[in-house]
């Protein structure tokens, strides 16, 4: 296995002076390509901040972060946006679909925004992903009309649209019932196995974490296990 990403001595502080809060305190971590890892830790341990930094949505206060050989701390906003679009997928706890768009339109968004239009090829891949998620009958449904589990499966499909090397999932099953949660995790495991996509899943759920081959425990802003 080769290292997909590597972070070293990552520090992130919020606020200044007396209000300064240090969330990450020199965190170091390496993720290999094709891994399926769970990110565990109590609330406030820095899991979400770490995911945000790994997703290039936020820059660390100090430390280094490289992915696919790119220094993502030095990159500017435009470069990070492009990198994020091509190489990183997101699955949020509350799915975060675009409510005025159909399931298919949500899935093809990452490709369409890069290409400047919805190409037939993108729509075809979007249909395939939705079919794989068991949503072929919901392709043209407005996303607002889907159930919670369906929305989260659409979100997984969207995260995979550009064939990213890394998918960051923040409590992807936290808002789902047990059946839907199992469906979503089975899909994630299947994609990880079949396509070698790396998943880093933040969760409080020990059962979900147990489905992952690696568990990374974060506590007080550093990796503790």
């Amino acid at each position, binding site marked *: 296995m080769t290292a997909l990403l590597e972070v070293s001595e990552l520090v992130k502080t919020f606020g200044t002076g007396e209000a300064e809060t240090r969330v990450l305190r020199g965190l170091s971590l390496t993720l290999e390509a094709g891994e399926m890892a769970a990110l565990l830790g109590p609330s406030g341990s820095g899991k979400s901040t770490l995911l*945000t930094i790994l997703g290039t*949505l*936020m820059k660390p206060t100090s430390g280094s972060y490289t992915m696919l050989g790119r220094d993502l701390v030095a990159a500017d906003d435009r470069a990070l*946006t492009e990198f*994020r679009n091509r190489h990183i997928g997101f699955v949020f706890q509350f799915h*975060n679909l675009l409510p005025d768009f159909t399931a298919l339109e949500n899935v093809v*968004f990452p490709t369409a925004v890069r290409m*400047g*239009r919805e190409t037939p090829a993108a729509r075809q891949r979007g249909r395939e992903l939705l079919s794989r998620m068991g949503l072929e009958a919901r392709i043209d449904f407005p996303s607002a009309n889907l159930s919670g589990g369906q929305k989260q499966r659409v979100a997984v499909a969207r995260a995979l649209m550009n064939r990213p090397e890394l998918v960051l999932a923040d409590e992807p099953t936290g808002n789902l019932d047990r059946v839907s949660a199992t469906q979503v995790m089975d899909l994630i495991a299947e994609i990880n196995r079949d396509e070698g996509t790396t998943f880093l899943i933040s969760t409080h759920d020990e059962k979900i974490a147990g489905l992952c081959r690696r568990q990374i425990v974060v506590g007080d802003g550093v990796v503790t296990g």
Partner: protein
Amino acid sequence: MLYALKIATRYLTASKSQTSLLVLGVAVGVFIFIFMSALIGGLAEFILSRTVGDISHVTITAEERDPAILISPDGQILAVVERGRSRTATLAEAATFVPLIETVPGVVAVSPQISGAGFLTRGAQVAQVSVTGLEPGRESAILNLDGYMIQGSARLGTGLIILGETLADDLSLRLGQTLRLQSSSGVSAVLTLSGIYKTGNGMIDASSTYVGLSTARTLFALPQGVTRIEIKLADLNTADATALRIRALTGLDAVPWTDGAAQLMEALNAQAQTGYFLKSFALITIVIGVASALLLSTYRRRPEIGIMRAMGAGRGFVIFVFVTQGALIGLMGGLSGAALGYLALLPFPSRDDFQVGTLPMDIMQGSYGLAITLTVIGAILASILPARAAARVDPVTAIGQ
């Protein structure tokens, strides 16, 4: 950027009632703009047609020679010959210049004239009048005599005269009666009254008389040439430029009507300025309305903007989505307002059929294209601030909302 256009359109169609209200607001602003343009423009046209519609738009008069001066060998002025009270200069080559002037673009009529003063005598009654000799066939070239005739005809043959209703009443004249006209040159002629007109202009109706050009030559002892050439234009607003053109073409002293109408031009300019203010206020209202609505939309869609940014949408893309929304709102509002304005102006009589007691609207002066263009530009400008605010949305904060 087709995709940004799709998203902008989707956002607008997703909130149909809000978008409809916004477009309606813009349309009302455009309607006011168009209505004001038609009113101010129509009013200006009306005032101009009523004040200068019947006068010459460009006039060529013979230049008076400088007074003769007798100067002594040591440079002292010994004598100056005073200029005569009556016009003596003539445009000797008028016959040559008239066809040339008629070819100038925008010129609709040319009227060579001999004008002067005289006394009209009917029995014991005498009236001081102005006398204008017109070329037969060109009687209505400048003043629409044909249109103002209430008795008889405007055709001027040898030995015929036409005059205003007030003057005819003052001298108790009827059609076909003869009267004596003595010019300021001292020449008298007995003429037959062939027509009576009523222009509504007191001065013209009470003291102007018209005779044929040949009669005027006799009266003013002018065997050849004319004293002035009056020119009417299709668009009286082009008088300045046309006068310059004629001056360059003929070398004659062509004077536009605007030279003697400074006060009227000031009044019209002031009226136009008022119109600009009112139209500017309408545009400002549009800009504020669009900006505030889009700012609200930006705030409401913050989480979605955050998601888009997280999925790889750049700041430029987000800006384009919101600016496109502004442009679409401006375009829809502009087109609706223009259509609304046009329909509202349709019942008003046209410029030519204007009746006293109604608003002098000119549907052709609605500035429809300008209104739509300015509205789209205004809406785009109005959307820049919300668009920039949207592009600055922090995806992490927005997604967490």
